[in-house]
């Protein structure tokens, strides 16, 4: 009898072991599938970038050659020379930098002010106003584009100026929403403590709330910078001279009636992407944080 139970338990152990192995095997299979899918996705997103980079070093015949060359046989910097000399890429770069930087600072400032008010201050109609603002996100940009154009160009006479590009984008509801969600998670007792510590209302915002909101501000800053750097349509609408063009707008000037200078466009795209890639690599931590901000409090 005893012997039998011993074999029973041995058998059970064997069975458990087998099950364990099966489980491990399954886990490994799933992992392999996940990695293969991720690798495919990485290739899928990386190839166009690589293509852009390699094309920018090709001469114009190599770009359109069949079969396509993934790596240029005779690498050349002609395209880069062209965009700097003919196009004025330096100027566009400067324009893009100024516009994206100024827009970012203004956006972050206003969004954090509004976010603070909506999350921490008590005033009549607070929620109503916030919901109206949120609802306005649902209005497509195309609907307001023409009125906005008339306002900026005809009424305020800001065509072809930095102000014309920056002013309409100084505040965005999305940014306000992000900052509100972030600031809701900050402890209100800090604000009370600030009041007792003789801080003015703006002082509380400036000396207490802003410094502890750095992670939120960084995320918003990156998002806004990237959005304004990549913005094409609005700067395209309100600028009409080469010297006022931003990088994204400028790149289109290498597309002519029947002819497209792919080399120059690719070189320009590389120049436009490099700052973003640097920003991303440097601030990757905040980028990833930004994806979950607002979703998880605290």
């Amino acid at each position, binding site marked *: 009898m005893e012997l039998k139970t011993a074999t029973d338990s041995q058998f059970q152990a064997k069975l458990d072991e087998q099950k364990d192995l099966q489980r491990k095997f399954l886990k490994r299979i799933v992992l392999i599938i996940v990695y293969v899918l991720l690798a495919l996705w990485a290739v899928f997103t990386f190839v166009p970038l690589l293509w852009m980079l390699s094309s920018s070093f090709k001469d114009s015949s190599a770009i359109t050659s069949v079969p396509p060359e993934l790596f240029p046989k005779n690498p050349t910097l002609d395209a880069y020379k062209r965009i700097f000399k003919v196009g004025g890429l330096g100027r566009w770069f400067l324009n893009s930098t100024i516009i994206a930087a100024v827009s970012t600072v203004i956006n972050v400032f206003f969004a954090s002010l509004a976010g603070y008010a909506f999350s921490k201050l008590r005033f009549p109609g607070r929620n109503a106003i916030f919901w109206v603002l949120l609802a306005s996100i649902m209005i497509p940009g195309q609907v307001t584009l023409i009125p906005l154009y008339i306002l900026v160009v005809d009424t305020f006479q800001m065509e072809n100026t930095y102000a014309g590009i920056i002013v309409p984008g100084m505040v965005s509801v999305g940014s306000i929403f992000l900052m509100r969600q972030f600031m809701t998670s900050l*402890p209100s*007792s*800090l604000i*009370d*403590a600030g*009041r*007792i*510590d*003789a*801080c003015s209302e703006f*002082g509380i915002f400036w000396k*207490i709330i802003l*410094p*502890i909101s750095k992670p939120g501000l960084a995320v918003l800053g990156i998002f806004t910078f990237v959005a304004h750097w990549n913005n094409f349509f609005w700067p395209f609408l309100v600028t009409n001279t080469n010297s006022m063009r931003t990088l994204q707008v400028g790149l289109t000037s290498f597309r002519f009636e029947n002819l497209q200078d792919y080399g120059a466009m690719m070189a320009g795209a590389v120049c436009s992407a490099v700052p973003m890639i640097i920003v991303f690599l440097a601030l990757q931590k905040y980028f990833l944080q930004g994806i979950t901000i607002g979703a998880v409090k605290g």
Partner: protein
Amino acid sequence: MAEVKFLNIVKQFEDENKGKVFAVKDASFTVKDKEFLVFVGPSGCGKTTSLRMVAGLERQTSGDIYIGDRLVNKVHPKDRDIAMVFQDYALYPHMTIRENLGFGLKNLKTPKEEIEAKIKEAASILSIENLLDRKPRELSGGQRQRIAVGRAIVRNPSVFLFDEPLSNLDAKLRVQMRVELSELHKRLEATIIYVTHDQVEAMTLGQRIVVMNAGEIQQIATPEELYEKPNNLFVAGFIGSPPMNFVKARLNGNQLHTASYTFTVPEEKLKMYKKYDGKEVIFGIRPEDILSTKLMPSVPDKNVYHVNLKVVEHLGAELLIYFDIGDDQLTGRVNADAKLKQLEPTELYFNLNKMQLFDPKTQERIY
């Protein structure tokens, strides 16, 4: 230093679901100069709201608040000459401890040397000198608590406000900080208003205690008075741990009839209860006034009964015993030497010299 006066204070909140809610209903009282006054009550009773109204963080719906001789209804918190310690400490996470302590004074444009001197003084009182250059996140809960107190001390206010400052600490540290706060009060000779939901904290710290429930002040009294002469059923049940036992009873002459037992009321008490002769009352007796006859030199001739113990809890020096009278469960606290056992019958003496009777309708104590 100063006294704080509440005159007919009402605070109403607009609640989305319940409509208008009273957080504080017509509260009037005076906190004496240099007094340690404790607000105690269950959560949502209006004690923190009262404190925040003193601080100026909350505006009362009606009524007047005086700090010293000054009407402060419309005075900004910074000008009220108060300092507050928050439940979650509310230390500024991006500042060092030194900056945290000096922040208020800096905002008040105090000269740098004076700020530094005050920080030093507060740091030595609380023995936190070695923490001054750290950030709050590098400190333990107890240390943060001290810094929060330090931030109040440097302001040298007339009135200190404490909002449940010990509730985030573990039990051992809480006892230690309780002693320190008591000492601090003696040392600073300041008026202190302290809010807690913990009646032990209230009893040990407060010179006087304000018991609140549902926005109403139930009683303002010294700890001894609250314990011996509670105004009503709420106070009697809230103060004391385990709480006072309540049993439905009927008074007939000097006989108090409950569902299972008939108690004899002491002569000297009967005078107070004359009006309730023949009426329903609620009989209150504290757990420590129920004694095991095993430890008495001689068994008294009255108010001794056999009971079946449902549960016996061993607390070391004492036993908590649970038994029923009719539908009411009673708790007794007896010396552990009585060696009482669960589910065994035992003989208990009810010391009615310390009994209380309450009116079942008004819930007020009969006296």
